[in-house]
């Protein structure tokens, strides 16, 4: 059906290495009888920002949920540092250093900002105050509101909290599910700058977005999902330049 187009060119971006962190091998995921992910291959190398793009129902969130153990693939496998991680429950998967910022933020609304961040560090025996200081430095807004209940924060602040909470678990790989959803452009800009900063500080990022321009502006490489399959993949710059992407996802009419 849809032809997979490989835009093979050396990305040549700084900060990335050849070390593969995450690998999906012909992964297929079902909801009952419905096949949501129809066999995708995807790699994330250490230090990269990889964008996972596509419209509603393309399977982006399902992919992330499968990586972090909330869903199990029926075929294929998920490898992290060469080790199979599919079948491992999400609370155990945290120990591998995978952080997940879920779609819709899902902060613990009746807990304070501080308690939410402490929850992020649940896998450790104690909360690392240096890590919390780092989060507060990244997000000064959270520092001001640390004793406030998370439910009283604005959407942008909740997104910051959701990211900060995931960082408290000291992830090596951060899965971000539509961090720009429902936020004002100015806030989206801020969030993307922070994602870039987090990546510079050494965290690898797999970023799910509908906002393709902005995500590709940030990413080293990108994958475009269409109805559960990889329709295109390649270096971000090439995807940005590709006319089919421009038509389908960047809202530009046919040239």
């Amino acid at each position, binding site marked *: 059906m849809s032809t997979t187009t490989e835009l093979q060119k050396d990305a040549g971006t700084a900060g990335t290495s050849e070390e593969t962190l995450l690998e999906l091998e012909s992964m297929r995921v079902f909801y009952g009888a419905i096949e949501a992910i129809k066999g995708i291959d995807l790699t994330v190398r250490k230090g990269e920002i990889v964008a996972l793009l596509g419209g509603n129902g393309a399977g982006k969130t399902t992919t992330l949920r499968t990586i*972090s153990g*909330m869903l199990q693939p029926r075929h294929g496998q998920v490898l992290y540092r060469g080790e199979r991680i599919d079948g491992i*429950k*999400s*609370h155990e998967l*945290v*120990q591998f250093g995978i952080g*997940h910022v*879920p779609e*819709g933020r*899902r902060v*613990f*609304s*009746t*807990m304070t900002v501080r*308690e939410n961040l*402490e*929850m*992020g560090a*649940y*896998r450790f025996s104690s909360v690392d105050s240096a890590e919390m200081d780092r989060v507060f430095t990244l997000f000064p807004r959270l520092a001001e509101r640390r004793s406030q209940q998370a*439910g009283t924060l604005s959407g942008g602040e909740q997104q910051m909290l959701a990211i900060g*909470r995931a960082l408290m*678990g000291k992830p090596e790989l951060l899965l971000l599910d539509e961090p720009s959803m429902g936020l004002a452009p100015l806030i989206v800009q801020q969030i993307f700058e922070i994602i870039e900063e987090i990546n510079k500080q050494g965290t690898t990022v797999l970023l799910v977005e509908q906002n393709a321009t902005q995500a590709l502006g940030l990413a080293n490489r990108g994958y475009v999902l269409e109805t559960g399959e990889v329709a295109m993949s390649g270096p971000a710059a090439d995807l940005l330049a590709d006319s089919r992407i421009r038509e389908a996802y960047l809202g530009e009419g046919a040239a």
Partner: protein
Amino acid sequence: MSLQEFWDYLVLGVMLGSLYAVIAIGYTLVYGVLQLINFAHSEVFMLGAYGSLIVLQLVNPGDNPTAVASIGFVALAMAGSALFGGVTAYGLEKVAYRPLRRRGAPRLIFLITAIGASFFLYNLAGKLFGRDPLPLPEMYDNHNVFTIFGAGVNITQLLQFATAVVMMIGLDLVVNRTKLGKGIRAVAQDAEVAGLMGVDIDKVISRTFIIGGVLGGVAGFLFANLNQVSYTMGFIPGITAFAAAVVGGIGNIRGAMFGGILIGIVETMTVPLLGDEWRSVSAMVVLILVLMFRPMGILGERVGRAA
């Protein structure tokens, strides 16, 4: 009703209410993590009472124990009830509810299972321990220790109230100050995300049942100490405490405490005003009124999944 009578009944009401509060916490805790009304909780309460009875029959306090020995007997009875309550609740979760959770069963199935487990447990208790009510052996010489507003308070009542208050404070500390407590709150709000944070959901649910079971079991002992032990003793206090949990706002721990005390006072006050036969009726009237005007309960919030 004279002023003196008012104080007498108020004191009694607060004492009874503290017991309802402790039982209500068991309902509310489990509801928080599973959105399940654990109707078998009344049987946890009943088996807690049998736990204390069994321990006391083993150690046999005899006549006129010394003060030190009395404290020991009370402590042992309490430990027995806590053990029975905790183990029953733990087993209930493991055997009855966990398999349903694995299969993603609908809520109604959980509810029916809870009612079935309740029937099973109290019939089992009737078969094992006999169907005649039994008093707890006397652990101490009961007499009035002091009076508040002219209302006398005896050792049994003091023991009941003090234990309930200590348990409530302890629980509040566990839930708000410990890592387990944070895990319980996180699972109650969004179990899936709690899992992403590294919270072992099964473990947290299991421990929540144990905590609720220990509280319920000890409440069973305290209740039996005022009345008697019987295999049917769980039903009425269980339903009343459930009403208290709903009145306070199910899922809200402080709400359960508040609801328990309120229902205890209303129930007890009904006795001099309308007569003993109206006790349980008044508790349910409070429930209905609260549900009519404030369906989320007095201290309740919208008990929602992720916002």
